[in-house]
């Protein structure tokens, strides 16, 4: 069947909207009561819940900042002692970054994207739920530690050696490393599914260059998250290994280097700033044109600016390390890139100003926050330029000036746009109108409070006040400014509280909002308020996409778009091609399930065992994790009735893709990309420790023939495994049995695992030297991948046994093949790196 041509498809005939709604609602809605919330996989429910939870964490982080400001109000306050103060500012920073900002943008994107793209849910609904539970559980671990007085206390960037075992002997640092890594599962999950949804679930005919700009921003954000989080996760894993098992990655006495931590952290940390900024900019680019009654200026230039920011922001991380003694030429590279990234940011800002210039800005509440953004962010940009100048940086480094700068950027560039977005989409989320006046009052309190607090901190910083100090008894002249700063901090807090009250009042008591209250052009408003879980009773074609929310709403509700209703009792959506969004097939999404929660709990058990130091039993906790993932894959909806589906009169689409990739395949590709950055960061670590690290050289060790043989055997066996995957697929596609090939593949993988174990056995102990430790880490990485490949092949074998592999739908074969090839490539690279390490020594 050739893909249908969009223009030729006749619309479905109109039907009565209410029965259509009932039919869809029965299939898509959450279960009743609390259990229904627990089992929900709906992007609407989970998006809202992500945002609500993020606001709660914002409240906790805000409370901590009030404690900080109370402490700093006077020079010699006995309110918090140093140890507690350290915990409090560390937790404030970590909560705001990892438990507020990132989850907030994930929630907003999850909630909005399917609505803007004209589809019914995200590509992997169970993954949304898994991400949420990992976030909630990981966040709870951190908060519990805070209440128990064992919170991390080494600053939000956890520099070694301070965060090493010698200087942080308690479990405080482990809480950070394990807890934050646990939470980051949700970031990776969100990144993968947002990316796949943007590329494959857009409404028919919505080309990439016609999709709403917000989707471009989130595409950029998701790509950055896939490349940015792996270095952080790697750094955390390595540091945890050092703390738990004494592998000396960062210990200079045994050849490690604390700078490696700084590199890995900032390789994540700077892109993180843009990961936070891009979605905020997406909100601005969505809201500004509508409130100015015009179109955005320079769609193409903005997409290019996003592209520039996504890439360039990975070339700046060293500017956080200007004071550590990096060679001049390298400094110059990073300094140049730091200045260059200002260009796309400026393009952005000029596009917004141009848009406001062209239109007629209306001073509604979201616009107030947008103006607050402009004012604040531009000032933050200016102090940023000051800090980018290396000599000034040397002066202001680690003073309150930096604290002021980073809050201008984070609150100006993220919090204000998010508040604008919340004010904008509140009618959609709650279905109700705002109570006039409260929101405006909150805005002014926040704005005045913010600038009062942080402008003064520039000055204390220039007077020389270091950041992260609880008292300043020798400098009583700093008190006046600090006291005022604290006063305004409380003003700002009152403002945030008022904002929250406003939201609660609106959701509980506001008048019902009319549909599409802002007369917006985009599809997110072309639905009932608050939106039903299925979003659209039928999916919009090109004509309805361009009709504006008001023009499309009724027709969509009456089933005049594609794939109306849920007549087969399944959750059906359209999968379209990446570029032109030609419909390719109908995908069946999973029903509500508690599996994500159970899996998250199993992972949590592992994390808690590690935290408690039960390293010997912790791996046992991985068995249920593996079992649950297996069950997860088994329960992926297998279409019993795989008959083609009629999406419009006379137009049929298959339930399995013919030729094109499945959604899962696209998702796995994204995962492998993130995985590849993880491996690249590990190889970077290996090179760094071998070449740059100043410590004592690694004691010589002569790789003998056995080791070489084992390494070669592992790679050869994996190559056989990859060929086996190909062969099995070819046989299944030719409708011939593949069981024997699959049994062979499982055995080959097991042998490769054994070969690797032998290799590991011969290597010197990882505790001996950092060089030995990275090598062991690399071997462990390969081992993990072979183990997963083994499970993958066993899964395919199981499917063959059950007769589930058919030419139309070859089960897990394609995905397994992808994994097997990646494992082969990774193993070959790792072995080559080990060889180079030996040859260099």
């Amino acid at each position, binding site marked *: 069947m050739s893909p249908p041509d969009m223009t030729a498809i006749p619309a479905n005939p109109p039907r009565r909207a209410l029965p259509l709604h009932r039919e869809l609602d029965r299939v898509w809605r959450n279960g009743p009561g609390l259990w229904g919330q627990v089992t929900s996989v709906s992007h609407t429910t989970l998006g809202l819940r992500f945002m609500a939870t993020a606001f709660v964490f914002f409240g906790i982080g805000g409370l901590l900042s009030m404690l900080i400001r109370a402490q700093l109000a006077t020079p010699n306050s006995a309110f918090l002692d140093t140890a507690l103060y350290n915990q409090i500012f560390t937790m404030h920073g970590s909560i705001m970054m990892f438990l507020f900002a990132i989850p907030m943008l994930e929630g907003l994107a999850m909630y909005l994207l399917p609505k803007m793209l004209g589809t019914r849910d995200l590509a992997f609904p169970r993954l949304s739920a898994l991400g949420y539970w990992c976030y909630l559980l990981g966040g709870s671990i951190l908060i519990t530690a805070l209440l128990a007085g064992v919170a991390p206390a080494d600053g939000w960037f956890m520099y070694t050696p301070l965060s090493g075992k010698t200087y942080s002997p308690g479990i405080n640092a482990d809480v950070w490393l394990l807890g934050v890594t646990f939470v980051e599962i949700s970031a990776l999950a969100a990144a993968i599914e947002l990316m796949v949804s943007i590329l494959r679930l857009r409404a028919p005919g919505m080309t990439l260059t016609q999709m709403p700009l917000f989707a471009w921003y989130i595409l950029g954000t998701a790509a950055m998250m896939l490349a940015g989080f792996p270095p952080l996760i790697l750094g955390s894993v390595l540091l945890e290994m050092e703390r738990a098992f004494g592998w000396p990655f960062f210990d200079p006495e045994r050849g490690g280097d604390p700078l490696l931590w700084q590199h890995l952290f900032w390789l994540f940390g700077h892109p993180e700033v843009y990961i936070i900024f891009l979605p905020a900019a997406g909100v601005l680019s969505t809201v500004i044109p509508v409130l100015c009654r015009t179109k955005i200026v320079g769609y*193409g*230039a903005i997409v290019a600016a996003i592209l520039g920011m996504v*890439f360039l922001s990975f*070339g700046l991380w060293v500017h956080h390390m200007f004071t550590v003694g990096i*060679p001049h*030429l390298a400094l*110059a*590279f990073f300094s140049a890139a730091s200045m260059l990234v200002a260009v796309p940011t400026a393009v952005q800002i000029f596009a917004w100003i141009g848009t406001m210039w062209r239109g007629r800005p209306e001073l509604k509440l979201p616009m107030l926050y947008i103006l607050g953004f402009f004012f604040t962010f531009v000032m933050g940009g200016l102090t940023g330029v000051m800090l980018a100048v290396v000599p000034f940086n040397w002066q202001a480094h680690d003073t309150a000036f930096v604290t002021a700068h980073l809050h201008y950027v984070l609150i100006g560039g993220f919090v204000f746009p998010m508040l604008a977005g919340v004010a904008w989409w509140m009618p959609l989320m709650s279905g109700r109108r705002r109570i006039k006046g409260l929101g405006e009052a909150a805005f002014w309190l926040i704005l005045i409070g913010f600038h009062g607090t942080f402008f003064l901190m520039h000055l204390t910083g220039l007077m020389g006040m270091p950041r992260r100090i609880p008292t300043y008894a020798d400098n009583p002249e700093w008190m006046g400014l600090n006291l005022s700063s604290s006063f305004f901090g409380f003003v700002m807090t009152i403002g945030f509280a008022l904002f929250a009250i406003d939201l609660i009042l609106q959701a509980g008591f506001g008048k019902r909002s009319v549909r599409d209250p802002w007369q917006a052009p985009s599809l997110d408003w072309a639905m009932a308020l608050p939106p039903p879980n299925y979003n659209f009773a039928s999916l919009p074609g090109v004509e309805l996409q361009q009709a504006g929310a008001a023009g499309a709403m009724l027709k969509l509700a009456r089933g005049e778009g594609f794939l109306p209703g849920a007549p087969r009792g399944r959750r059906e959506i359209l999968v379209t091609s990446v*570029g*032109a969004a030609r419909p390719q097939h109908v995908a069946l999404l999973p029903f509500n399930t508690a599996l994500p929660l159970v899996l998250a709990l199993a992972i949590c058990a592992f994390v808690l065992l590690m935290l408690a130091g039960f390293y010997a039993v912790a791996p046992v906790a991985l068995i249920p994790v593996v079992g649950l993932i297996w069950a997860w894959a088994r329960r992926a909806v297998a279409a019993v009735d795989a008959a083609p589906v009629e999406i419009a009169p006379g137009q049929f689409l298959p339930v399995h893709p013919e030729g094109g990739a499945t959604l899962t395949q696209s998702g796995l590709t994204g995962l492998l990309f993130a995985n590849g950055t993880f491996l690249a960061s590990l190889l970077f670590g290996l090179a760094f420790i071998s070449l740059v690290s100043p410590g004592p050289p690694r004691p010589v060790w002569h790789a003998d023939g056995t080791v070489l043989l084992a390494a070669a055997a592992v790679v050869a066996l994996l190559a056989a495994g990859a060929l086996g995957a190909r062969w099995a697929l070819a046989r299944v596609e030719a409708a011939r049995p593949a069981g024997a090939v699959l049994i062979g593949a499982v055995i080959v993988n097991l042998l490769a695992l054994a070969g690797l174990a032998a290799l590991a056995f011969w290597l010197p102990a990882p505790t001996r030297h950092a060089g030995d430790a990275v090598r062991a880490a690399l071997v462990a990485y390969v081992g993990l991948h072979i183990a997963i490949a083994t499970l993958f092949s066993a899964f395919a074998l199981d499917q063959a046994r059950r007769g589930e592999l058919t030419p139309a739908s070859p089960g897990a074969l394609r995905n397994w093949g992808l994994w097997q090839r990646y494992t082969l490539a990774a193993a070959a690279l790792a072995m080559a790196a080990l060889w180079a390490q030996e040859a260099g020594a």
Partner: protein
Amino acid sequence: MRRVGGMVWLAWLIAGPTAWAAAFSVAYGLHGLGCELGWPALSLGPVSLQRVAIALPSLAAILLCLVLLARVSTALGPEAGIPRLGLWIGLVATLYTMAPVLVATSC
């Protein structure tokens, strides 16, 4: 995008910045390696081996961007606009961030 597939278009879109990223990482890596192995002391004609090693990947990236810029219109037709901007980003970013190779002291 009507003429070429979406993935092909996306590949064109990121080609320029990817070339920059590759040149940047390779240059940074070679810089570290060269400092370790004493390349700045080895001269290759008028300049040191170090500078040549660092400059070569950038030159390759610049050439690649230029070649692709010359072809992008024929390859993508009406959809060439944004990918062309992407190639310019790659070109300018490489020129700008790698310019210090010509002047700054190396290690």
